[in-house]
């Protein structure tokens, strides 16, 4: 079994990270999971959360806001937004929260009688808030 695998973290605008890793903790939609070399091929969607990458240089955390991960020979994470945790400031976080709140409000207006999309938006918002709590940023 190989000790490391290739890991790519890409957002639509740029390639955020690309390196050989030993393990990656992924915030999957159905719960966190850790992918290590030799993991069964898998595709999962992401919830907003922290992606923790362990490589020879140590552990590095990234904040992702959704997207999906493809685990195969290598691991590719395609995130809507992805940035290193230390680049996540209170302002950026406030922006993201505001966006999620606005999405929830539009969902409430547009889908008055359908709970599905509203619940989804509400879950997204609460995930975001939880994410903020996790890294020590407040949602208000």
């Amino acid at each position, binding site marked *: 079994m190989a000790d490391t695998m290739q890991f*790519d973290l*890409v*957002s*639509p*605008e*740029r*390639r955020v990270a690309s390196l050989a890793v030993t393990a990656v903790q992924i915030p*999957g*939609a*159905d719960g966190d999971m850790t992918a290590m070399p030799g993991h*069964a*091929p*898998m*595709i*999962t*969607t992401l919830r907003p959360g922290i992606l923790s990458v362990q490589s020879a240089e140590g552990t590095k955390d990234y904040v992702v806001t959704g*997207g*999906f991960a*493809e685990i*195969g020979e290598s691991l*590719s994470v*395609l995130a*809507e937004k992805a940035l290193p945790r230390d680049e996540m400031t209170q302002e950026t976080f406030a922006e993201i929260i505001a966006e999620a709140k606005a999405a929830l409000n539009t969902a409430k207006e547009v889908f008055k009688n359908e709970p599905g999309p509203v619940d989804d938006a509400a879950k997204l918002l609460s995930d975001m808030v939880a994410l903020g709590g996790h890294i020590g940023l407040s949602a208000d």
Partner: protein
Amino acid sequence: MPSLKDLKNRIGSVKNTRKITKAMQMVAAAKLRRAQDAAEASRPYTERFNAVLGSLAASVGGSDSAPLLLRGTGKDQTHLLVVMTSERGLCGGFNANIAKLAKQRAAELVAAGKTVKILTVGKKGRDAIRRDFGQYFVAHVDLSEVKRIGYTNAQDIAKDVLGRFDGGEFDVATIFYAKFVNVVTQIPTAQQIIPASFEATEDAGASTLYEYEPSEEAILADLLPRGVATQIFAALLENGASEQGARMSAMDNATRNAGDMIDKLTIEYNRSRQAVITNELIEIISGAEAL
């Protein structure tokens, strides 16, 4: 025959024009590099995304439970044409070529008895299409305030398009943009985004059997709207590079033409100056002979 002063003024003004077009060319060259870098940077995402989506679509597609975005509404009565052009002119045939392709498609669809709706991105294309197909306009996206095209711009457009699709406003959506080949060649392209169409992905899909979490259908339903945004984003970036490329070569031509014109005008100027001198000499000599 224009006077010497007139000629001199014209030479001066053409020289100024040349300075401006030269400057525009250099600005376009710098922007082109940035636009190309942006397009390059987004490529890994788009490629991976399409590969995964393609293999997912291949395994789920065809079944009746597949999302509407993938299998379509089962009709092709109403077409939405998303025409993406630039906000600025002076870029050669860039906008005209995209508009021409879109108009051609619109005319075909109308002739075939289909309903056409047009969503324009960028005001130049809007102006070009308004005269013939203005009555089909449903919306316009203004990007003139946007300095650098970001993914959020694409998301906004995608949201608008998807909202209309969910509202049953159209059956088929096609985007029009110019594919960047090199500085002198940009190919106006029409690409169908709804229902999603994928090139055959024989290598990625067949060889690996993935596990899916949550279910295959849920992932597909989550990814398809993102796919629309991704395709629009890729098209916007491609368009951005094409626009700068087109402007660069257009301004290069303009600069060269201005140079040619200055040469011609200078020759004319020298000739008439010579003629004036000759005339004066003749007058002096004939005056002296008369004495």
